[in-house]
């Protein structure tokens, strides 16, 4: 579970996040949407412990990311929109490196890496260096590395950018399986159709402020999420 309470982040005088509060419950897929520069990546980086925030509190499964960052990170995985990985490493070395950081036993990592590599069509590619991969392949490596240690909380920033249609389909299945087993998924996206079909709950952010949060069905009602989003954007 992710709990965000009164989080404010300033860059100089500008508030990138302004008193943002909401919860992402265990076993749900939660979409975080907003226009470019609304504060999505800032919040995601704050949740993952990359970025410090000025006020408020973020907890992962009841533990504070500020006070117990390592405990929080042990149950969490992060996939960025721009897969900046260690380019000089072979893909398998990179995935093993991430697994080493989480202390994943050899048999567990072998099973998971082979499973996800096959799912994403990368089973014969992992001995190549990451710099030889396309953007989409790098994104797949990042996803395999994130999933190999069986995270309880998966946080993703635009995870579908660069993925091919089959990988997107498979990734959606993976996400459903993770929450079925009690995991939590929080991700940002601009693909509103997908968010509408995939997610249980949604939060909409604008200029650092939360303008709507709740169940997907209640928020969109009879309309599409896209329409609701555009109306909210125009109103505020």
């Amino acid at each position, binding site marked *: 579970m992710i709990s965000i309470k009164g989080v404010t982040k300033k860059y100089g005088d500008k508030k990138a996040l302004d008193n943002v509060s909401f919860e992402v419950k265990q076993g749900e897929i939660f979409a975080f949407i907003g226009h470019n520069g609304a504060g999505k990546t800032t919040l995601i*980086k704050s949740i*993952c*412990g*990359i*970025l*410090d925030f000025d006020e408020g509190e973020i907890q992962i499964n009841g533990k504070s990311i500020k006070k117990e*960052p*390592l*405990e929080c*990170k*042990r149950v*969490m*995985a*992060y996939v*960025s929109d*721009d897969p*900046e*990985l*260690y*380019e*000089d*490493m072979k893909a*398998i*070395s990179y995935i*093993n*490196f*991430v*697994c*080493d*950081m*989480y*202390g*994943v*036993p*050899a*048999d567990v*990592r*072998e099973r998971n*890496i*082979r499973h996800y*590599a096959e799912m994403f069509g990368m*089973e*014969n*590619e*992992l*001995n*190549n260096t990451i*710099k*030889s991969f396309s953007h989409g392949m790098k994104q797949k490596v990042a996803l395999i590395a994130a999933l190999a240690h069986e995270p309880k909380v998966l946080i993703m920033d635009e995870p579908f950018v660069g993925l091919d249609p089959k990988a997107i389909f498979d990734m959606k299945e993976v996400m459903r399986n993770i929450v079925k087993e009690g995991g939590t998924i929080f991700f940002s996206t601009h693909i509103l159709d997908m968010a509408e079909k995939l997610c249980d709950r949604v939060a909409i952010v604008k200029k650092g402020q939360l303008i709507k949060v709740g169940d997907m069905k209640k928020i969109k009602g009879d309309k599409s999420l896209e329409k609701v989003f555009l109306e909210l954007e125009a109103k505020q």
Partner: protein
Amino acid sequence: MSQLTSLLKAMMSGGLKLFNYQAKTEGSKRIMPLVLGALIGMAMLVSASTITTELALDGAQSAILSLYTLIVTMIIAMEGSYKAGDLLFKPRDNDMLLAMPIKRSTIVLARMIKFYVFEMVYCLIFLLPAIIAYAMNAEVGMSFWLVAATMLVLIPAIPIAVACIIGLIISTVSGRFKHKTFLQVTLSIAVMFATVGFVLFFNTTTDSDGQSLVMISNAATEYYYPATTFVKLVKHFDILEYLVFVAINLAVVGLTALLIGRFYFKITSRLGAANQTEFTNNKYSFAKHSQTGAMIRKEVTKYFNTPVLLVNTAMGLVFFIMAVGILCFKFDELVNSMIDSVEDFPLTADQVRSFLPGVIFAMVAFASLLTCITATMISLEGKAFNVLRTLPISGRRVLISKVLASMLLILPVTLSGCFVMFFRFQFGILEAILVLIGAIAMPLVTELIGILINLKYPRFDADNDTVVVRQSASVMAATFLGLGMVLFTISLTFGIVFLTGQIIGLTILDAVYVILALFLYLALATLGEEKYTKLVA
């Protein structure tokens, strides 16, 4: 022209940011560059003034100008030749610029100008003090200052053109082979040794007649056009000769850009050909490692895949290996020639041999204090630093792993060299232990300083690895600090050993370095970790 101006504006916008601070908020970060700049400036001015005063006794003070012109030229040519390839052909914005309607020679010219502006720092460090020292020792008029200012700007032109052409050759040759990195490193080291060999040959030739400084400067004035013109124009200003000099230097840069522009597309395409899948199998290793072990493996992989870092940091170690070899095989010959050539040499061959532990200590100091790998290790993470921040590993462990990885790269070389010397010259156990303690403590101090400096001045947004390794504040600070420590330690080694004897002298030096290492470790574990948690790529 407007295309070039716009291109330069874009390229310069972040590329020359050395000490990355904002004017109002990070005032403390200004102290280090100011102190460092003042110290280097003072040291260079004192050294140039001393030489000029000596030269002025013979009325040859203008020799300082040709001498320092030559020094700047050699430094830029040598240092530039192994980074030019990466700076010209491997920046991140290549694809974007090649997709635009810009002439390739314009792209090359813009990259060369950016490279040029950075290399002018050597003119400021070496040539400016020489100019001031000359002005203090001679009567100078307005024309002198015009010539001096022009030289400060134009002296890098020829060495940069040479460096770019060498970079072009290295990139062209290595681009044709599968193991591009290996070939690039080998060729770069070969060029570096060729340059050092040339300098040594030049020095030996001129040294034979004594008065080496005057001889070198005379040779420079005679054979090297910029040095010749500099001295000529200072002595008798001639507007025509001045304009011809400016035109020739501008033409050299322009023509080099045109030449490289012709090959630019082919080379970038060949270097980009690495982007092809090479292995297609599913035989993988899934062995588990500790967090520290995994971090060290990552750092070592990065080190061996970053040619410019390898070449940059291997220099001290390669010289160390060469010195060990020379001492092992030519020791008696060296000592005898030293005793023969120096009148009233105060020591016998046996006495010189008894000072060997101190000599090896000084050699290790030279090799390890000049090899600072950690000064780049945080910056080289680039944007992937954010990935590291999301992993469940403490900042302290990350930082210590980086120091350990560097030690793992340095120690096998320095310790092997020490052991070879111990067996060859049959050292006593106590002397051997004292040298070994120093051989571990000195690189540890350097690497701890390097990582602390890189924490203070990280650079995650560099165009490529070469910019981090050769053009970042962190590396410059670590290099100058290392040079200072080398000079300090070597003079202290001989001073203390001579005054107190071998055992006491080496014990004092070991104690200094061990205490320093402990102090720096504590700083890394406390302040360092605090700083680490605030860094964002």
